């Protein structure tokens, strides 16, 4: 039908397309050949260093992302106003650009590309969730941008990435710490632990932590009666609690997320589940202020491993906790804590880079050298004062050689439910309550 009509417009259209393609190809190959993304400003005087922050600000994980961003703002203000910026860079100020990681690796990756393409950031911090961080890592490696992460899954440091650093303790060490803590206390109190049940939400994080705990239990001769995974958005915990009750283990190692943690504690209380001990690992649902508010005394005596120790009695830690509380009206939790010491570590790395490479401190390879040469402890660094183990030194794979967690326990102090640090060094005037009273 169409074939009998005039073909002129069609031909014109085709010519237009070909012209555009030709012009475009020419432009593309002309411009794209010599284009290593310029991440380093060539001007010798550095006014400010922009750090990109990618955090989940929408979706299920927004709670952590929001708190982390708040913490970042606080720390950057302190560095700029009280410490006078990065001194070795002539007092250059830190600046942060925040991008929402959204709800998928796709959007986290877009956010990363945007930070690099439009702000030319030398350092990116993100993105709490390991899948998102993995998506970001492929971009940052390609563009030679330093990625400092608060995502804990072990895999991340096994990708062979060059420009990747993680101050925080990785996931499996959370599981290990939880078990070590329980077995330490059991020994101290002459309790024998023979059997355990592990429950975890079935994300990569939950699974990695629980596998760490599982191996550590076996290593210590504790029999794992069951290892139960469930989806984090579970609405009915009773089948799991019933099953544990029938198995009657000595201890429970739980790796819940948030809502499910509260739900577990409430259900366990209702069912009268009371083993020798219930220890959480990476379990914000047990000890975070918001979950205590939601769960009430159902979470009494629960513990949790923590990438951060808010009770750490160093000057800088007290200062940050106080200022955070004054500014945002709540205690900093893990997400904020990781941001505290990570940003300060970045800050110290920048200082170091300024000293080591005064001509080109922000060159990614120089920055990497600066990170690797850090050896921080409580006497020479603010970051280390904020870190649970008090030491930060990076292995070539980017993990902190001295990574470790603290253990918090919910206790009744002056009539209010409070999370206190009980392990490895309990905070002043506090002791782990072990075993659970009434067992």
């Amino acid at each position: 039908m169409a074939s009998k009509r005039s073909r002129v417009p069609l031909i014109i259209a085709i010519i237009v397309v070909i012209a555009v393609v030709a012009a475009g190809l020419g432009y593309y190959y002309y411009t794209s050949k010599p284009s290593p993304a310029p991440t380093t400003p060539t001007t010798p005087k550095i006014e400010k260093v922009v750090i990109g922050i990618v955090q989940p600000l929408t979706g299920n994980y927004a709670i952590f992302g929001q708190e982390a961003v708040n913490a970042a703002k606080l720390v950057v203000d302190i560095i700029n106003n009280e410490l006078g910026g990065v001194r070795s860079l002539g007092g250059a100020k830190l600046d942060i650009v925040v991008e929402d990681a959204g709800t998928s690796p796709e959007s986290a990756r877009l956010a990363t590309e945007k930070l690099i393409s439009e702000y030319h950031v030398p350092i990116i911090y993100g993105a709490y969730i390991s899948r998102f961080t993995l998506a970001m890592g492929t971009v940052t490696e390609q563009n030679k941008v330093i990625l400092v992460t608060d995502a804990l899954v072990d895999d991340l440091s096994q990708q062979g990435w060059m420009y990747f650093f993680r101050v925080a303790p990785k996931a499996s060490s959370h599981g290990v710490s939880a078990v070590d803590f329980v077995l330490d206390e059991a020994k101290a109190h002459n309790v024998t632990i023979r059997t355990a049940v592990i429950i975890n939400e079935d994300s990569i994080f939950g699974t990695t932590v629980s596998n760490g705990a599982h191996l550590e239990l076996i290593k210590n001769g504790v029999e794992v009666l069951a290892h139960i995974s469930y989806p984090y958005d579970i609405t009915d915990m009773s089948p799991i609690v019933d099953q544990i009750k029938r198995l009657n283990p000595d201890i429970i190692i739980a790796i819940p997320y948030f809502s499910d943690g509260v739900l577990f504690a409430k259900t366990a209380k209702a069912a009268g589940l009371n083993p020798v001990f219930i220890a959480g690992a990476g379990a914000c649902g047990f000890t975070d202020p918001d979950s205590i508010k939601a769960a009430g005394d159902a979470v009494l005596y629960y513990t949790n491993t923590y990438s951060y120790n808010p009770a750490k009695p160093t000057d800088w830690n007290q200062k940050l906790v106080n200022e955070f509380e004054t500014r945002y009206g709540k205690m900093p939790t893990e997400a904020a804590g990781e941001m505290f010491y990570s940003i300060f570590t970045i800050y110290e790395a920048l200082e170091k880079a300024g000293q080591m490479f005064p001509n080109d401190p922000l060159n990614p390879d120089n920055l990497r050298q600066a990170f690797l040469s850090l050896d921080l402890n409580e006497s020479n660094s603010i970051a280390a004062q904020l870190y649970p183990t008090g030491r930060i030194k990076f292995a070539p794979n980017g993990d902190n050689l001295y990574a470790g967690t603290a253990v918090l326990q919910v206790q009744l102090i002056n009539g209010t439910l409070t999370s206190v640090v009980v392990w490895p060094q309990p905070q002043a005037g506090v002791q782990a309550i072990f075993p659970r009273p009434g067992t």
Partner: protein
Amino acid sequence: MTPLDLLVAAGQQVIDGVFLGLFYAIVASGLALIFGVMDIINFAHGDLIMISAYFTWLLSMTLNLDPLFSMLLTLPILFLIGLGIQKGLINPVLGKEPLIQIAVTVGLGFVLQNIALGYFKAEPKGYPAPLFSGGFSLGPFVIYESKLVSAVVSLVVLILLSRFLAKTKLGLAMRAVTDDRASAMLMGINVGRVYLLTFAIGMVLIGVAAGLWMEMGQVTPYLGTSFSLVSWVAVALAGLGSIQGLIISAIIIGVAQSLGSLISPSIQMAVVYLIFFFILWFKPRGLFARR
């Protein structure tokens, strides 16, 4: 495990499942009523429960009142909100293609979720010490007070609802509209008014479900997705027009989910959806459809 252990285990799951199912029945009842009478495909059902749960929580915390009682205060408010939603959003898409209705209600769901996120933040909110938070033993079984109470309350409310539909003028009108809209109009029923009140009553049922949920768990902005699909599955199993059918279907779902968790809690919902799938495959009008 010995066979006896297995039997006890299964028995416990069935008990939990029945309680859960009765709760699901009240969760789904609002959807069933609205869908039945108005033929509106509401994908925001779960999100309406979520927002109502926040209301309940807010009242509970400010008045220091158990969710079971603060729920009573939210119901009239929700009734009014229901009138508003029906006037503003539902009426314009009545009788439109299902796809348009879904688009609008999905949009409403997005709006509710993100208002909740903006206002309440993402932290789970729960009432720390509900009246019924304990449990007791019954032979080898554990009975959870909160689940028992929610099951009983939802059963009572559903019986009241069924009485209301069978005895009152409005209830009869609603049933007539469900059965045959055209004839109902010919019989002189003011269909517009019936719709308005149906949606408002649906909101009240949603409020009851939300209150019972706050007695048992916590609310986050994303709670709704957990309830939306389950409600639809219950309605699909039951078919339209029978509250008894809805209750039985919801119990089937609850028990299936509960028993499914014996295999693995990670796939318990898959068990529910598989049942749903096969029912639709072989009995697309549901198990207890009246029409």
